[in-house]
């Protein structure tokens, strides 16, 4: 009874960092086990519903910290199930950033050119495709036209949405009912399963210990499928290699909890957290101005009034993604829809005489909700987030059955970060308040602090052991055989949506993990094609793979 289970590779988390590595390693012949703390939903279970207990709360985690709150995926497929699938590559200057350490924060081995072929692999796999103007929803169109009227450029962003299937329902944060959003449930994960990988939902990893053999033992609790506060059991699995991909807000917490038995962690575990410099502004547009100034109309009655229609962010302005600008003053601006709840509470009333985020004036602002347009800033912060002591289980003390909990992350924005937000707020006003088109206010940080949907860097790669937890092959310093491949490995803010970069880094990390498995006597090959069998992008990474595997 209770014979210890064993596997070659134990992967914690099934988002981009977990699914991509699971696929390649299983395809290469390794025995792969994935533990995912959230549930496993299929497309029929992705609800169009705000009710507590629908997929809207089942697949998300919202962890409130001290000065920073983090939204992340909590289900098989992780962030890919809840993301908006906007997939730009990070601009070249990002890889040269110094950030808070006064010297280049990325490993010398990685710049945009080096990452390009790995981006190509992900682009082939999901796939990621350019967006044409005739696929841009009204909200993106009105933002683009406002940018043009104010003298700015605007781009339809590349995305991982099959627009032929998309209904522009804007429920994609609750999971895509129509399989239009190319989540990992449609590519890497089924391919991993077909190669024998095992995925266990509702398994929340608590800690890692080390065996005398040099292998690792992973300790988990099983979680009730409705009330995530309830544990239904526990167990352990032994593995030669552990890949942590539990998400930026969870991976460092598992390592912190493991430290007493596993041994001292690198200094950067649970430090240097970045919120990707994120900031939101909400504009209330004047419909007659949209018609008069921008020459737009949906029909005779409406020029805009289409906040609810679309698929998250589709159009972005990249005028400030200019490497010649000073660090902390570079950012992208993306038009965005956030559903009610997430997207309404923190929005502030312009020129409020009373309270700005609640009260009578806020209710009047809500009456104009159809004319709202949210603008998402992704800027350069200072990696100023630090995780406190871990909670007893998981990565938060859960308040609600699902979704809401309180974590240990502490974030105090530096003057650099605040300056970036100030400059971007001004840019948003310049675009949208031009000629009285709209009134704009940033979201309040008085309720839950700052917030991010793209947490990064809490366990990051780098060349300097003092300021990076991982080497440039994503291996945890001082703990051979433990790799980290999720957003926590990204060194800092990217100024754009990070999913594509996280995924490209995970693809890039696989040959090094194959090497580590072979060193431990596991017969494993590298070289699987894209999940659908496509091999076009594989040629581009061949040279990089040879440097790792010979």
């Amino acid at each position, binding site marked *: 009874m209770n014979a210890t289970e064993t596997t070659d590779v134990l992967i914690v988390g099934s988002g981009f960092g977990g699914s991509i590595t699971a696929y390649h390693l299983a395809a290469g012949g390794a025995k792969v086990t994935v533990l995912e703390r959230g549930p496993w939903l299929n497309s029929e279970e992705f609800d*169009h519903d705000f009710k507590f207990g629908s997929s809207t709360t089942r697949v998300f985690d919202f962890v409130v910290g001290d000065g920073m709150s983090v939204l992340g995926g909590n289900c098989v497929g992780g962030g890919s199930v809840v993301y908006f699938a906007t997939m730009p590559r990070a601009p070249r200057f990002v890889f040269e950033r110094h950030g808070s350490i006064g010297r280049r924060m990325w490993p010398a081995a990685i710049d945009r050119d080096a990452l390009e072929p790995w981006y190509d692999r992900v682009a082939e796999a999901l796939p990621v495709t350019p967006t044409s103007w005739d696929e841009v929803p009204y909200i993106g169109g009105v933002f683009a036209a406002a*940018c043009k009227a104010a003298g700015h450029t605007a781009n339809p962003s590349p995305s991982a949405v099959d627009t032929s299937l998309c209904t522009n329902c804007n429920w994609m944060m609750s999971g895509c009912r129509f399989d239009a959003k190319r989540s990992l449930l449609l590519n890497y994960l089924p391919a991993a399963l077909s190669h024998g990988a095992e995925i266990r939902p509702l398994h929340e990893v608590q800690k890692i210990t080390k065996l005398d053999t040099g292998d690792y033992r992973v300790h988990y609790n099983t979680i009730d499928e409705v009330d995530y506060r309830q544990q239904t059991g526990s167990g352990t699995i032994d593995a030669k290699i552990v890949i942590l991909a539990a998400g930026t807000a969870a991976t460092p917490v598992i390592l912190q909890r493991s430290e007493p038995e596993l041994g001292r962690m690198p200094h950067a575990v649970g430090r240097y957290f970045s919120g990707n410099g994120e900031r939101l502004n909400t504009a209330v547009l004047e419909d007659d101005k949209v018609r008069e100034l921008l020459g737009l109309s949906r029909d005779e009655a409406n020029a805009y009034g289409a906040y609810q229609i679309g698929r998250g962010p589709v159009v972005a302005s990249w005028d400030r993604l200019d490497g010649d600008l000073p660090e902390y003053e570079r950012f992208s601006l993306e038009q965005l829809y956030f559903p009610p709840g997430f997207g309404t509470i923190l929005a502030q009333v312009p020129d409020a005489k*009373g309270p700005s985020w609640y009260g009578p004036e806020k*209710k009047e602002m809500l*009456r104009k909700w159809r004319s709202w347009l949210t603008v998402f800033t992704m800027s350069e912060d200072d990696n100023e987030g630090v995780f406190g002591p871990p909670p007893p289980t998981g990565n938060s003390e859960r308040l*609600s059955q699902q979704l809401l909990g309180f974590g240990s992350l502490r974030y105090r924005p530096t003057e650099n970060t605040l300056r970036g937000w100030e400059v971007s707020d001004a840019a948003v006003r310049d675009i949208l308040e031009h000629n009285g088109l709209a009134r704009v206010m940033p979201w309040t940080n008085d309720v839950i602090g700052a917030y991010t949907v793209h947490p990064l860097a809490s366990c990051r790669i780098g060349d300097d052991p003092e300021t990076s937890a991982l080497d440039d092959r994503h291996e945890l310093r001082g703990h051979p055989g433990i790799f980290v491949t999720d957003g926590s490995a990204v060194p800092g803010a990217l100024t754009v949506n990070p999913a594509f970069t996280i995924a490209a880094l995970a693809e890039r990390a696989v040959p090094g993990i194959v090497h580590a498995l072979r060193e431990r006597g596991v017969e494993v090959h590298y070289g699987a094609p894209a999940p659908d069998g496509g091999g076009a992008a594989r040629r581009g990474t061949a040279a990089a793979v040879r440097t790792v595997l010979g």
Partner: protein
Amino acid sequence: MPETECPPSRNTVLEAFADTIIPGEKRHPDDRAVAGVSQGGGAVAAGAIDVLETPEGGMAPALDDLARMLDEHAVAYRAGCGLPEDREPFVGLGYDDRLALVGELLAPGHPEHAMWAGLAMFSFMAFDTGAHMHTADAIAAGHPGLATLGFAPPGEDGLWRFPAYSYGRPLADVHPDTDPTGSPV
């Protein structure tokens, strides 16, 4: 605290708080919880108590304490302002005084900020999502919050689709440094 003939129930206090967050019109002439400073239903009519009491939300075990603490804060508030003490503490405050007190509790740095922010957010969610009901049912029942937003109803199968969605033409110049994949260089 002086006894009143009809001491406020816990829910009346919580309703008065929710009405401070998203105000509505009185449900009936004797409605004490709803101050009546706004046209149309507010958070209370939208189901604030139901949302707060859902087992899923996790707030239910705290509601007795929150209502009691709110009244304690109201007693101190009205004493500080020299307001009459012959009525229910929080419910007896006028809307502007409710707003002023709630503003103190929600201010960053208040030692109880997290719990009052939580109560405010759940009250808000009752209005703008109706999270205690299936959204399609809430819309069909005329949920006041979703109606205020103008949230479009679903199709017959309960799912949302917007066949008309685009202006359908280029509306800005793309950035000159865009690579062939559509990304910034």
